[in-house]
């Protein structure tokens, strides 16, 4: 059989195995975990950060990184809430919230693709600027909302499936499709794999890269809007640590930090592992001091296990 397929499957199963292990442990430790209510709970909690991880995965596959997503979440949340509380127009508020993400993504993308400066430092700077703007705009005060239809966007659910989980699934399906089945997706892999060769092949590398950051910003802003609805307010302190969480989810899911390799579904696994772990630590009432340690150990274990499986598979087949 095709080696590459085995590899990919093994890689997926390695991460899946880690997840299963956590699930089995949870099964024996508490009967609170496998209840429909808790699972839909976990689903809801995972979904928002998972959506950001999709954008991050694409950015990383293209050979970059985006440290501004956390700030974008906060910024779009506050601006969306502000527009909503001023105009009362839900559609407008959502549109403008998302626009923020697109604009920041565009600025990141243009700066990165036109200059070739390290995405790390560009997005760190824009993150700092966006964070500052949000604070200046809000004076660090949340913007409370009192709009019931808007609340439904993030808080509603269809039977036991929370709406955010549905958004997440749609996002994953759409972008997994884009990454595996379309030219645009193929080019993202190509650029991350060998940028020079992509230029030579006639791919519009700059435009493609820019678009990837726009998508990253857009998804972050989308998350910001949904959070605004869930929290029923625009929160300037939102988003702290979201960047690292998204990167972690992508890497656990098999995305290579040096670009060119990774999968959207892998990232879903990564996001689920992180989400389930957080939920589990709470359900088990693990002393909060130990939570950091456990999280670090599990992430380390996941990547090491994956590495182990991979080297095994590649030396066998």
């Amino acid at each position, binding site marked *: 059989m095709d080696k590459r397929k085995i590899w990919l499957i093994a890689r997926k199963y390695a991460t899946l195995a880690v997840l299963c292990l956590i699930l089995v442990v949870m099964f024996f430790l508490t009967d609170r975990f496998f209840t429909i209510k808790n699972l839909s709970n976990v689903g809801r909690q995972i979904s928002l950060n998972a959506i950001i991880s999709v954008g991050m995965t694409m950015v990383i596959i293209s050979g970059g990184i985006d440290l501004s997503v956390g700030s974008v979440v906060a910024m779009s949340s506050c601006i969306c809430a502000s527009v909503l509380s001023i105009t009362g127009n839900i559609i407008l508020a959502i549109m403008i919230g998302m626009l923020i993400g697109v604009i920041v993504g565009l600025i990141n993308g243009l700066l990165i693709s036109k200059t070739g400066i390290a995405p790390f430092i560009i997005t760190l700077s824009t993150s700092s600027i966006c964070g500052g703007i949000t604070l200046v705009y809000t004076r660090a005060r949340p913007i409370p909302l009192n709009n019931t239809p808007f609340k439904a966007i993030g808080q509603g659910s269809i039977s036991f499936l929370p709406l955010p989980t549905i958004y997440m699934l749609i996002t994953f399906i759409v972008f997994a499709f884009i990454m595996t089945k379309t030219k645009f997706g193929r080019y993202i892999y190509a650029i991350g794999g060998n940028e020079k060769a992509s*230029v030579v092949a006639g791919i519009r590398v700059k435009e493609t890269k820019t678009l990837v950051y726009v998508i990253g910003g857009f998804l972050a802003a989308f998350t910001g809007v949904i959070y605004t609805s869930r929290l029923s307010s625009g929160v300037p302190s939102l988003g702290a640590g979201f960047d690292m969480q998204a990167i972690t989810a992508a890497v656990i899911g098999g995305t290579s930090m040096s670009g060119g390799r990774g999968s959207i579904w892998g990232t879903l696994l990564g996001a689920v592992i992180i989400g389930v772990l957080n939920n589990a630590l709470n359900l088990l009432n693990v002393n909060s001091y130990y939570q950091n340690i456990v999280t670090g150990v599990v992430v380390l274990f996941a990547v090491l296990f994956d590495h182990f499986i991979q080297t095994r598979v590649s030396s066998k087949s």
Partner: protein
Amino acid sequence: MDVLLSTDKICKSFMGNKVLNDISIDIHKGECLALVGENGAGKSTLMKIICGIYKADSGSIRVNGKIVNINRPSEAQDQGIAIIHQELNLIPNLTVAQNIFLGKEKTRGIIIDDKNLNSEAELLAMKLGVKINPDQLVSTLTVAEQQITEIVKVLSQNADIIIMDEPTASLSIEETGQLFEIINELRKSGKGIIYISHRLEEIYKVAQRICVLRDGRLVNTFITEDTQIDAIVKSMVGQSISEFYVKHTYEVGEVAIRVENLSCKKEFYDISFEVREGEVLGIAGLMGAGQTPLARCIYGLDKIDSGSIVIGEKKLKNHLPSISIANSLGLVTENRKEEGLILQMSIKENIGLSPWAPISNQKGIINKKKENDLANHSIEKYDIKANSPHQETVLLSGGNQQKVAIAKVLATNPKVVILCEPTRGVDVNGKVEIYNIMNQLLEQKKAVILISSEIPEILGMSDRIMVIYKGRIVYEAKNIDLKQEDIMAYATGGHQNG
């Protein structure tokens, strides 16, 4: 006659260095035009201008008589220009088929039809008579297989003007022959081909006209059938080269390296040989026959399954390259860009890179004088053309990069040197110089293992020849009156003897 493409007074400078000076060439329908010249003459640069990677400082390009503006590779493709670049331009984590059709994928709606890509790639490969697996990841291919992928990629574009910049540098005779057939067919169907190579005998086989570049100027255009090789060489390098393979013979001394029953699964089996001081062992074989893995295992880059390597008194097994160097073994890898050089480092830094290079005191503190001496000495000895020892190797032409790669290995003063494709992409003069270097090594009582896909080179430079076929030694003999055809026959599994 129909001129497909012409350049008019193209000039190009890099950082104040004029690399191309008023170059005007034209290429006709149904013609194969060869472009030759020393390393760094400006051939690749001219081609990169034609296909939109660099922008000319002045001058113009015409396609079918009309002046065109080519600003990016995709625009060159739109003009019907396709190129096989000298350096491989493949995406490691995409499959062969995905690479071949990169940027030109056929879609159904917006969905890429990968099945179709695979079958088309297979079809193309079949038409060309080459063997590739369209579904294999490029990162798992050998250099030669990658080169073939590049060729298929260019042919898939169905372009009118096809540029091939040293396409055969890593191919063996068999595949080279196939490529020539393809070129002839393309010519017959009215396409124009620009062919760049340092192997002049190849040029005689395919090209109708030959343009010679020297120091960025077009110095001569020859009609192939009216011209002797000598004239071309003279035009290229400014002097004639009387004898190409100058091999001195020295007295053979002690056994310098002995390889005993070496096996590495799926690569080679039960290989034994020895090389003595002052002797060159040439190893010939088709691509993928196992020579490269053999060299890598001997040097300690890959793990062996059984057998052993003895250098002097010392027995090595599954050792690190550092141990090899410590035991006076050196390896010049076949892929200088990936495994030979640190491209962003200077010539000086590359030459002194190895822990065994004599540029520091015992505490590891670099002695500037020793370092400069080593670099200057190497630049002089191996005739490396560069502005200064501080120049980054990425800015050198391929031949000069190759010399730096060799100089880097020899700076560790090894007793046994394995040379893998040492003259790949190197110009005539450079080859002669590299052969001179080999002679110098022999004079110093060193042992050389020469692995090359160029059989004339093996025949010209070896004391003994070993042929490997499918990972096994099928022939071994002193190099007396051997013929290219015989070696070929063994290498393709024709003769069966031991």
